[in-house]
């Protein structure tokens, strides 16, 4: 059904979808409404998809193949997507988001390719259309290849590699892509070959752009690429005069950019610094070997005694906790200590884990009550009254070098002020360095004791010791 009625229904569905996207994003800002918000946005998306299939074009029997392919594509995508999303471990969430983001970018790039081909056949070289197609292609391809590299790096399949003079190469490449793009738009009869050159160079740029960026900065990059894909979707909206694509894309584009900035602020770094500075690559060289002092070890029994006679205990969880799958165990320790009347909270650094909020998701998975998770400012305010701080698998977020060593690559990043607490126990696998690849003088501090071992095993022995007391 098309005609006036069909078109009106289609537009109403698009308006409804746009509203659900806005509401969905808005509701994601409060923990009790977030899930509903996500579902609303999903319903809106479903509505927009169904309405497009039903009302965009009149069904004609010679296009049966088109419809079959649409439904086949939807089915294949749904099956694979659901399977991947349900199978992925909570600790692997960041790379999963990155992967799905890459798929969206690829979708936008493919749309641009087809539309350009269409343009070549019809011969209607509208300036606006060509600009939108070229921009969608560039941004979509960069987002795709960049996201896949980010996915590979977080999965540990791809290491940090920086080409010599990589930044200059990147800038030259970017200028080349933009120049070619501009050239294609002003050509009288665009040459199809240029489009494929732009595609290739954009894919290469995405790879080279993400390749040198260190793992600690990966969340920022994923968030940035997320907003890129949003923009690519918005260009698609231009292309098809489609308001749902436009509002959805722009919303994500702007929201993603702000989120990227918020993440950078949490690490006290500027976005340019993240992109050009390549944190992880150069970090190891900085901050040479200073006089290190001695490390005091503690046994699980002594640590348990310290905990059991405290009145306020705080845990600083890090990625190590997630890797050891110890979020449930730490919750058991919380219950064991609470039975003894001990106040037990979690101090969450904004970038704990691999993404802002990642640690909260992991602890929520283990049924840790939401009010027990303190944000950094609140946690630091309470630190002076805390008897024991238990640092589990965290390193850089408690490194005092961020406050007192201007030569340190993490200098200026806000940290959890564990040194204000009366006692510190750091649970670590070994004396290895954190993600930023630098030493942590906290380990050598007077107040600090080290409890070496796998986070989960150590926590389990702590629990049994606490229960025996």
């Amino acid at each position, binding site marked *: 059904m098309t005609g006036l009625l069909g078109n009106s229904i289609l537009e109403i569905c698009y308006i409804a979808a746009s509203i659900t996207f806005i509401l969905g994003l808005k509701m994601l800002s409060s923990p009790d409404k977030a899930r509903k*918000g996500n579902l609303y*946005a999903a319903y809106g*998306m479903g509505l927009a998809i169904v309405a497009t299939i039903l009302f965009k074009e009149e069904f004609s029997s010679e296009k049966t193949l088109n419809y079959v392919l649409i439904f086949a594509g939807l089915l294949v995508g749904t099956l694979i997507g659901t399977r991947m999303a349900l199978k992925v471990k909570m600790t692997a969430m960041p790379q999963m988001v990155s992967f799905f983001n890459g798929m969206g970018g690829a979708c936008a790039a493919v749309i641009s390719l087809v539309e350009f081909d269409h343009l070549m056949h019809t011969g209607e070289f509208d300036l606006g259309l060509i600009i939108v197609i070229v921009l969608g292609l560039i941004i979509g391809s960069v987002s795709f290849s960049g996201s896949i590299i980010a996915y590979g790096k977080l999965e540990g399949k791809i290491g940090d590699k920086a080409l010599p003079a990589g930044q200059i190469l990147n800038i030259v490449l970017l200028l080349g892509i933009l120049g070619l793009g501009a050239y294609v738009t002003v050509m009288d009869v665009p040459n199809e070959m240029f489009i494929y050159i732009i595609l290739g160079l954009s894919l290469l740029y995405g790879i080279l752009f993400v390749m040198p960026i260190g793992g600690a900065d990966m969340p920022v990059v994923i968030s940035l690429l997320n907003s890129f894909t949003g923009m690519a979707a918005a260009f698609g909206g231009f292309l098809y005069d489609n308001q749902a694509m436009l509002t959805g894309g722009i919303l994500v584009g*702007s*929201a*993603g950019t702000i*989120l990227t900035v918020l993440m950078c602020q949490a690490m006290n770094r500027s976005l340019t610094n993240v992109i050009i500075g390549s944190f992880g690559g150069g970090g190891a060289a900085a901050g040479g070997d200073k006089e290190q002092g001695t490390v005091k070890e503690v046994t699980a029994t002594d640590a348990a005694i310290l905990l059991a006679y405290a009145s306020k205990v705080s845990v600083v969880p890090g990625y190590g906790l997630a890797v050891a799958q110890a979020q449930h165990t730490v919750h058991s320790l919380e219950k064991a200590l609470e039975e003894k009347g001990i106040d037990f909270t979690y101090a969450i650094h904004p970038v704990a884990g691999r993404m802002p*909020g990642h640690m909260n998701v992991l602890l929520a998975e283990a049924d840790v009550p939401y009010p027990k998770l303190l944000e950094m400012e609140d946690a630091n305010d309470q630190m002076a009254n805390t008897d024991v701080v238990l640092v589990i698998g965290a390193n850089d977020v408690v490194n005092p070098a961020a406050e007192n060593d201007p030569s340190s690559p993490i200098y200026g990043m806000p940290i959890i002020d564990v040194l204000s607490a009366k006692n510190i126990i750091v649970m670590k696998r070994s004396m290895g360095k954190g993600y930023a690849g630098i030493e942590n003088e906290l380990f050598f501090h007077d107040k600090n004791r080290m409890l070496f071992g796998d986070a989960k095993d150590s926590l389990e022995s702590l629990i049994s010791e606490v229960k025996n007391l």
Partner: protein
Amino acid sequence: MDQILTLFYENREFIFLIIVSIFLGIEVISNVPAVLHTPLMSGANAIHGVVIIGSIIIMLEADPTNYFALILGFLAVVLGTLNVVGGFVVTNRMLEMFKKKDKK
């Protein structure tokens, strides 16, 4: 110059919509607490999957004998669906955990 001005004039409503949407996006996001940043990023990721509409339009408009458009269009539908479905399911999984807390 004329061409650019025409382009601007013809698309003025779109440009208006874009500017309002940019501010709306910033406004909506700025109140999100850090705890929800990961689900938010994931939810936003699912929403830009709206690009799938474009791939469906390609398929609807493609000539049934234009295999280039049909094959790439099919690929785009699969990619877009992966983005949409995967994104929403992953976000829902993350948020399900927060939900459990509230009932207690």
